[in-house]
């Protein structure tokens, strides 16, 4: 996923890694949404945890920082507490483009084998899975 932000890179990095900022955009999806817990221990091996409150309840995400190279790179694991077996790796690259910043975010999780299975299953057993839709979807979740 990429974005071009109208902001300098150092600010984007700060907004992505400081709790007072993160709680203002992560999970801020309108009325009835808030982030009551936003903890960040910003160092390699440090842990983070966010709780998103939404109109129907709360969801918790947590993880650990793997790489931190301010202001250009930030890599962390992300786990959705309801599915602790699924560990995503979120890798963010920030690149200066004039006075703007390009963000390239790559979210990967252990679906490589699942994808291969699904594709072959879809083709072998006629499960009705759309190959094109799947490829497009999984191109977004690059390994």
């Amino acid at each position, binding site marked *: *996923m*990429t*974005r*071009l*932000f*109208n*902001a300098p890179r150092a*600010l*984007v990095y700060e*907004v*992505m890694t400081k709790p007072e*900022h993160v709680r*203002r*955009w*992560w*999970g*801020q*999806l309108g009325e009835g949404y808030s982030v009551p817990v936003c903890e960040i221990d910003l160092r390699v091996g440090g842990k983070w945890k966010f709780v998103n409150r939404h109109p129907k309840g709360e969801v918790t995400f947590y993880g650990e920082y793997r790489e931190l190279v301010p202001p250009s790179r930030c890599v962390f694991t992300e786990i*959705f507490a*309801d*599915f602790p*077996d*699924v560990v*995503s790796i979120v890798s963010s690259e920030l690149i200066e483009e004039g006075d703007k910043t390009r*963000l390239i*975010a790559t*979210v990967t*999780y*252990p*679906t490589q*084998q*699942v994808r*291969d*299975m*699904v594709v*072959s*299953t*879809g083709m*072998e*057993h006629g*499960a009705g*899975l759309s190959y094109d839709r*799947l490829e497009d*979807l*999984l191109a*977004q*979740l690059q390994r």
Partner: protein
Amino acid sequence: MEMDALSNTFAALADPTRRAILARLAQGECTVNELAAPFDMSLPAVSKHLRVLERAGLITQRREAQRRPCRIEAAQIKGVVDWAEHYRALWEQRLDRLGDYLDELQGNQPPIKKAKSHARKYRK
């Protein structure tokens, strides 16, 4: 797919042996003995994995005396794919919101609908 079923599915998929078993079954039905063959593992150990997969609805086993054929149940796996799509949409929303927040922080005009679709031009 409801949360408990999906959670069971992810737990079942978390093990590399079980993923390998599913990959084999994706090519067609197999007996328990045929599935156990590539693994340096006892038959009871393989059976244990198969029970986990069966409880998660990922495979079905027929109890035909000695043969015990297994087959994959693709609908459960599709549930995982659907979840992945939801998760990607969640990330897209977060990044949209990050962009809006950066604008607010710098005292820029919050983007009106038109400006937002302009910004989307830059997205791959």
